[in-house]
Structures are given as C-alpha cells and as structure tokens.
C-alpha cells in the first residue's frame, strides 16, 4: 500500500502498453514508460517514429487502440483534452490572433472560471517569468518568432497543469535563436517546477534540455534513459547511431584465456575476463562494437596490437576545434575519428596508413 502511494507521489504519468493502429499501420506499438514529477522528458526519433502520435495521445487528441494512459494515477481513457489539465505548446504556437498576449495567456484561466482581475494578475506574473511583461497588450502578429514561443509557453504554464507538452518547440525558430531558447525554456520550466514532455527529431536539443530521453523507432520505444546513459550505453545500433556519432564495427567474438575478443578484418576489441559485456557473449557470436569517434587515438606508427585497428586515411578535415579523419578499414568500411591531438594528426595526410587504438572501457558491445 505504501509503495503504491509513494509511486503516485512521484509518478506524474504512466503509459501501459499503449498502441495505436491506423488500419494495419502500427503508429504506436506497445509503448510503456513512466514520467516522474518535475522531470523534463524528451521523446526523440525520426519522423514517423511514433513520438508525435504519443504526444497527441497524451494530450487526448488521439485515443489509443490498446493500452492505458494514466495521469496522476487517473485513467485517461475516454477523457477529452479539455478535462485533462495538461498544458501544450504547439509547433506553430497556435496563438489566438484576435486576442492580445495577455488575453491569450489568460484563456486557460478563463475557461476555468477565474475572474478577470485574478486572471490578469496571474497572466502578468507568467509574463514576467518569460520576460515579456512589456508586451501584454500586443497582438501575436506584432511579435517575433521567439517572443511568440514564449507567449505560447506562458499560456501552457499559467494554470499550473499536471504536465506540459512541447511539440517540436524549436522547429519554427532559426538556428541562432534555437540554442538560446533551448536553455531559456529549460530554465523557465525548471523555475515553475513543471513536468515536461517534449517531442523533437533534433538530438542535440534533446541532450541539452532533458533529464531523460525516450528514443522512438517505428512506433516502438527503443530505449529510455538519461542523456548520459543513452550515449554511454546504447542498447541498439539505432540508438548508438542516433545519439551522437558512432562507428559501428561488426565482428565475431572469440573466447581467450584472458577474456573475450571481438574482431574483424584489421581490428580487434579485447575485453578483460571480469567485463560483464564480455561475459554476455559466447564464442562465435556475432557482435557489433560501438566506438565513439572521439575515443579513438590515431597513430602514424607504432600502434599496439590489442584494442587496436589499422586503416588508410581517405579524408583529413580540419574543423578548427578538432580534426576529423575518415579512415577506410581493410574490409572497406569507413570510420570517423575525431581528435584534438594536433601534434599527432598534423603530419598525417590522405592516403597514409595509420593505426588506431582505443580503451576497453570505452567499448560498448551490442549483441547481434
């Protein structure tokens, strides 16, 4: 009993086996996860992955074909959007063009029967928080994109909803403004203690803003975890490739007296005996090794034999902050190496054969 109560105190929302079918198309396939109070969760994935469908299901614009959605412990099946106490910021903001900024923000309070005086007071408070107090009597079309975004956010937060939904919040902004607003929105939602679910296809945005990220693919939830977890311990090739940059090396596993080796043509990865990843593999298993470009060291000569590889430089690109090498391995695959070791790289050029090395700690193995 206690456990259940404690759960409710922490869990803002729960999806249990939610599926959505359009004819024979599975827009959502058995999606389950929990959302904790006060956290900022981003649903990330390519288009068609189900993230937007999930968002609209949470909002109540779509009814799931199967499964349940619970908000604050209450089953939302059959509950229309207006009764869900959820705030939402739309992709193109959906501000009411015939109302002033103050009236727009006050609208959710108006629908809840709050009188004008109180409404204006609370709306002004919200405007202060988003830094637009001087725009109260303006109309949406008189404001810039970034300002409209903040008004939309204020409207979503003013009535202290259980959950706030953000639908591709940065999509309508130009690149320069994005970085700035990512941080600002994160601050604002934290300041008011909101529980946020955001949807985006931009992995950098997800990494910047979220406490946890849920990665979607083809209607299924691939993996959910903190940015750190997803980057360091991806559980599938898709996740490894989607978050940050990854080199995916496919090879065969072999058990040795000292541990497990995964190898391919011209490269190998050695895991010590006590490494849990190694223990999970048996001999002749096919395995995929994830190597982050910044974790590879390049050598002109004198590369070690274990946890190492060789290849030929195809491109050497200077990016100011680092070098990027595109290296062709013996089996024809190309991997990326990013290095800030200017001394080591400077002398290399395209066409050179080089050696590469990495630490077993930096290895992630994904079972075939």
């Amino acid at each position, binding site marked *: 009993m206690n456990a259940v109560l404690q759960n409710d105190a922490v869990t803002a929302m729960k999806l249990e086996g939610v599926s959505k079918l359009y004819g024979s198309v599975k827009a959502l396939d058995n999606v389950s996860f929990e959302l904790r109070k006060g956290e900022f969760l981003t649903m990330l994935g390519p288009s068609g992955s189900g993230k937007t469908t999930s968002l609209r299901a949470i909002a109540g*614009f779509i009814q799931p074909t199967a499964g349940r959605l619970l908000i604050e412990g209450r089953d939302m099946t059959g509950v229309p959007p*207006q009764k869900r106490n959820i705030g939402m910021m739309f992709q193109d903001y*959906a501000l*009411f*063009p015939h109302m002033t900024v103050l009236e727009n923000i006050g609208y959710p309070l108006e*629908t809840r029967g709050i009188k004008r005086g109180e409404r204006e007071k609370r709306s002004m408070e919200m405007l202060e928080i988003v830094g637009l107090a001087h725009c109260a009597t303006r109309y949406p079309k008189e404001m810039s994109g970034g300002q409209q975004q903040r008004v939309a956010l204020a409207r979503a937060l003013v009535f202290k909803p259980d959950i706030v939904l953000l639908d591709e919040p940065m999509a309508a902004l130009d690149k320069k403004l994005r970085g700035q607003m990512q941080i600002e929105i994160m601050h604002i939602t934290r300041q008011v203690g909101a529980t946020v679910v955001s949807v985006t296809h931009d992995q950098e945005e997800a990494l910047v803003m979220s406490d946890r990220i849920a990665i979607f693919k083809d209607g299924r939830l691939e993996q959910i975890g903190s940015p750190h977890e997803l980057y360091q311990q991806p559980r599938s090739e898709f996740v490894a490739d989607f978050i940050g940059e990854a080199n995916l090396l496919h090879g065969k596993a072999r058990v040795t007296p000292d541990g497990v080796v995964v190898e391919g043509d011209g490269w190998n990865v050695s895991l010590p005996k006590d490494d849990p990843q190694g223990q999970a593999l048996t001999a002749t298993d096919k395995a995929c090794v994830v190597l982050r470009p910044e974790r590879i060291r390049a050598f002109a000569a004198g590369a070690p034999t274990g946890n190492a590889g060789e290849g030929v430089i195809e491109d050497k690109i200077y990016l100011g902050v680092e070098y990027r090498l595109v290296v062709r391995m013996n089996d024809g695959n190309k991997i990326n190496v990013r290095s800030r070791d200017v001394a080591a790289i400077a002398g290399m050029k395209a066409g050179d054969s080089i050696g590469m090395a990495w630490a077993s700690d930096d290895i992630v193995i994904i079972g075939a």
Partner: protein
Amino acid sequence: MNVSAQDGGAPASARAPWPFRVPSAFWLIAPAVLFLVLFFVFPLLKLVAISLPDGSVEYYEQIFTTPVFLRVIGETFRVSLIVTVVTVAVAYPYAYAMAHGGRAALLILTVALLIPFWVSLLLRSFSWIVLLQNSGLINDFLIATGLIEKPVRLIRTPFGVMIGMVHILLPYAVLPLYTVMKKIDLRLMEASSICGASWFKGFMRIYFPLSMPGVAASAILAFTLALGFYITPALLGSPRDMMIAQMIAGQFNEQLNFGLGAALAVVLMVLTAIAVGLFGAARAVLQSRGRSKGGV
C-alpha cells in the same frame, strides 16, 4: 530599349514589374471605359435626370410621403433583411463543412452549390412555383406525412418569395464564408480545447470571431442582391407584397410614369450603394484588426 510610336499618345505610365510588354495602357482600357460610360453610366445618369424634372424634387417628395411607396420600400427592407439572416445562417454550417469537412465533402458540396448557381434565376424561380403550388411537391409531401390535411397556401405569399430568394442567394452567401473559413487553422480549436475549453466555448471565443469577416461579407452581399430582386418576387409573390423592383417596373410598364419610376430607381441605387459602401468599410475594419491565419 525600343521606343515605339505607340507610346506617343499614352499618359505617363510606369511599367509595373509584369510579365510582358503590351501596347500602352490607354488604348487597352479606353474601349471598355468608353463602352461602359456610354451604355452604363449614361443610362444611370439619365435616370437621375428624369427623376428631377427641371430640378424639382416632386417625385422624391411623393415617394417619401405616400404610404404606398413607403410601405413598399419598408417591405423590401424587411424581406431583404429576413432573407439575409436566414441565408447566412444556413450558409454558415455549409461553408464550414466545405472548409473543414475533408476533400470528398468539399467536392460533393461544391457541386451541389454550383449546379443551381449556374441554372438561371428564372428557371429556378419557375421550379419553386412548381414545388410550392397547391398540387406541388411540398404540399404533397406534407399531406403524405400527415402534418396537414389540406394543401397550405405557399405560393403567392411572402413565405414563398423568401424561400425562393434564400435558394437563389445561398451560393452567393456560402462563397465569401468559405473563403474566410478556409484560412482559419483548426489547430486553434485544438489549442482552445487543451486550454480547457469545451467545443462550444472554443467556437464562441475563437472560431466564430475569426469567421466574422466572412459573415459580414456574406451578409452584405446577400442583402445588396436581395434589395434589387425582381423575377423571384414577381413570380412567387402576390401584388400586395411587392418589392421595389416590381414597383419600378410597374411605373415604367403600366403607369408610364417615367419620372416617378426613375426616382424609385434612384432610391434603389442609393440604397444599394450604401450597402456596398458598408461592405467595403466593414471589410477594411475587420481586416485591419489582424484576423489572419492563426498563430504565426
């Protein structure tokens, strides 16, 4: 740059950044303007002249003091107003369905709207005669369903006239509404609902206000057209409830009182001009209040 002899007689006209070179504007526009001045403006001016014999306003005095004339003008106003309200009210859901009901609905509803639009007014009024007469379809239907026992008099009544007018005005009323509604983003209604509003509240606070320019345009168009109706009231109404147009025709055809007829025509022209002016003003006001595509 080619300097052409054709440019010689033209007023200084700056070339708009269009597409193509064309003989200068003056010669292109002159025929149409001349034609209309001769065969359109002049007849209208002639009417004004005839209505003021030697500058005397006796015909206008007659109109505004004789009960018969005042009644007819009043009746025209009353009928036009009622018809406008009914037509716009019926047009609103129809236009909404066209704007937001999906592609199939749009196609079907457009066809249903345009077919009568393109059948002449005369023929449509004719078919209403057939429908409304005592042995007509409507009475047959009412008797068959047991709602009445004897045929009800529908033809040669104001009611019959109004039904006919609504039928003819409906396409004119739907189109401006549709044009405006098409531009209203339904996301705004979604936003309204997530803000906690019921459908009804959202409609009253968001959708309807945004559709107002269309309602205004539709109403004024319908009213303007209704004022001048001749065929429909002539065929479907009784002489007792005549409208201005019929009275004008009567003065010219039967009474041969051209002066009075002309004065009545001028009154109708002025009323129409006022209605059209209101339309322009209303549209300008509503548009400047920033009613555009929702959100951005």
